[in-house]
């Protein structure tokens, strides 16, 4: 009996989480739709006979707001309880987050440090991040990858990669 009630409680928690994330994501989409709608008004709506540049974006934005509101209602009424995915529970979301941060740093540094240095640094981090990997291996594989990528894309395919302040 105890396990049954525990299970019930867990289901309830999952349902609540689902409702919350559906609400949050829908609120975000409502915001997005509103921003586009406001922008459309500024562009000029025109009339149906002579549509302005903002008319169709406005309609699209309004529909997005409408469907997102409906999603909230749907989640509140608890129609979709079968779809339970504990968002971050038991997942190595820290790894995904670190990779994302490393990649945003890559964009930021690319123009400063140049392709070779930035790629080498980022690849080293990526090779090291996911599972236990010796530093020596990570550095070696990263060096090899960067060198091959530079040879293939910059030398053979003539891509113009940014050079950093170091001159390469």
């Amino acid at each position, binding site marked *: 009996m105890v396990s049954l009630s525990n299970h019930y409680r867990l289901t309830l928690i999952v349902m609540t989480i689902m409702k919350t*994330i559906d609400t949050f994501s829908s609120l975000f989409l409502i915001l997005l739709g509103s921003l586009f709608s406001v922008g459309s008004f500024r562009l000029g709506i025109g009339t149906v006979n002579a549509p302005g540049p903002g008319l169709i974006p406005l309609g699209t934005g309004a529909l997005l707001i409408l*469907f997102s509101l409906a999603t909230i209602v749907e989640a509140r009424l608890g129609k979709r309880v079968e779809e339970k995915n504990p968002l971050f529970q038991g997942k190595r979301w820290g790894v995904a987050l670190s*990779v994302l941060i490393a990649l945003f740093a890559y964009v930021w540094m690319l123009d400063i440090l140049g392709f070779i240095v930035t790629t080498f640094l980022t690849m080293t981090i990526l090779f090291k991040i996911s599972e236990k990997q010796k530093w020596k291996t990570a550095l070696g594989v990263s060096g090899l990858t960067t060198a091959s990528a530079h040879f293939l894309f910059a030398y053979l395919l003539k891509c113009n990669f940014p050079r950093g302040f170091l001159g390469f």
Partner: protein
Amino acid sequence: MDIFSGILGGFAASLSLANLLYCFIGVFIGTLIGVLPGIGPVGTISLLLPATFHVEPVSAIIMLAGIYYGAMYGGSTTSILVNIPGEAASVVTCLDGYQMARKGRAGAALGISAFGSFIAGTLGVIGLMFLALPLAKLALKFGPPEYFSLMCVGLTILTYLARGSMLKALSMALVGLLLSFVGIDAITGLPRFTMDVVPLMDGIGLVPIAMGIFGIAEVLINLEEVLRREVFETKIKGLFPNREEWKRSKGSILRGTIIGFFLGVLPGGGAAISSFISYGVEKKLSRYPEKFGTGVIEGVAGPESANNAAVGGAFIPLFTLGIPANVVMAVLLGALMIHGMIPGPMLLRDHPQIFWGTVTSMYMGNAFLLLLNLPLIGIWVKILKVPYRILFPLIILFCLIGAYSLNSNTFDILVMLIFGLAGYLMRKFGYEGAPLLLAYVLGPMMEQALRQSLLISYGSFTIFFTRPISAVALGLAIAMIASYFFPFFKKRRLTVEEETG
């Protein structure tokens, strides 16, 4: 142009040494990414799109199409040997394929999926040739209202078939439309929603969006899971199924082909769904349905044929109407437009070599794939053993370089990463990427068709309902959306009744 001179012209184009090479590269890469987890055909095609800017349009499409159907072959290998589908379209192949491998029939399972794919792929191409011409002729009579309604119904079917909530899928389609409006308005020449960011004047690029949602996000999701892939250690011998197995598979292959082909034509149908339906049909028709899931060869032959036939079918709406049936086709449509081709009935008339060259190259491609996948299966198994921790940085590096090389600008990398983050969160929150991307590609065409229709009708929306084809299409779209709401309210009423009485 009649069909035979078309085929002849097509073979003349596709049999040139350069195009044979492009076809081979395409199917080779397709098989590779089909085998590898973490990147699918959409991500790969958009990744390689910039590389095709300088080649002939027909060569570009031949190669990109090869990636798509090549991935269908490669995906089945991982399903059978590792019990992990390389692509969504090979998920069901795991059920019986892996069990066959465990019973020592890995060779036969790989063999039947390759032969089934070959037969279905080839029949699908034949179907494509015969159906495309009359449809394109019909489509020449379509005006803006018909196009607008067809695109509406296409998007609605896609969201209707989406996993999870149709409302969420519809929202994603609308977000895709909104994103497509960013940039210079084609009619007034005014910049829209660019926030004075100069690179946004040309719009948000298709390639960074697709690579973000289907490349970067996919890698991030995979990184969260600790993937343990154990290749089934077995000597793969005898790739030829025995006579008994052939006899049992024959019907499945044919049924799979028909199911796959016609579902492929439908928007949102495509390879994945047709493989599921084929499996269901085989199970239902079987004299021993209870044995499905324990290594029944029909359960491999049917779905594997279906997903390959679907590829042929999916090209029909693209080439005849210019409306992509699924996300891969949407990216191909983007590729055609980058090469200055407007897909649709005019394409068949004005640039027949594109259509026939691509179609006939698919015969070659299927033959290449048979060679690549049967005698060389050992190589793919070795590649399967490359650990993901080595693989994912390489996939990411390719995406970074691919995005940068678009305009030699870090802005496109940034856009890709933002959509990578968005795609990752979308997966977490249960939103699908496919409707977004398809709507993004259709957006400018839909807006133009809608504006033109309103000009024709002097601002009256009745034009969409007074023209029969348009009325049927829009009616279907509205009915599908309504059908989503009605059972919902009905169910709600029932629970209220239960509670109250």
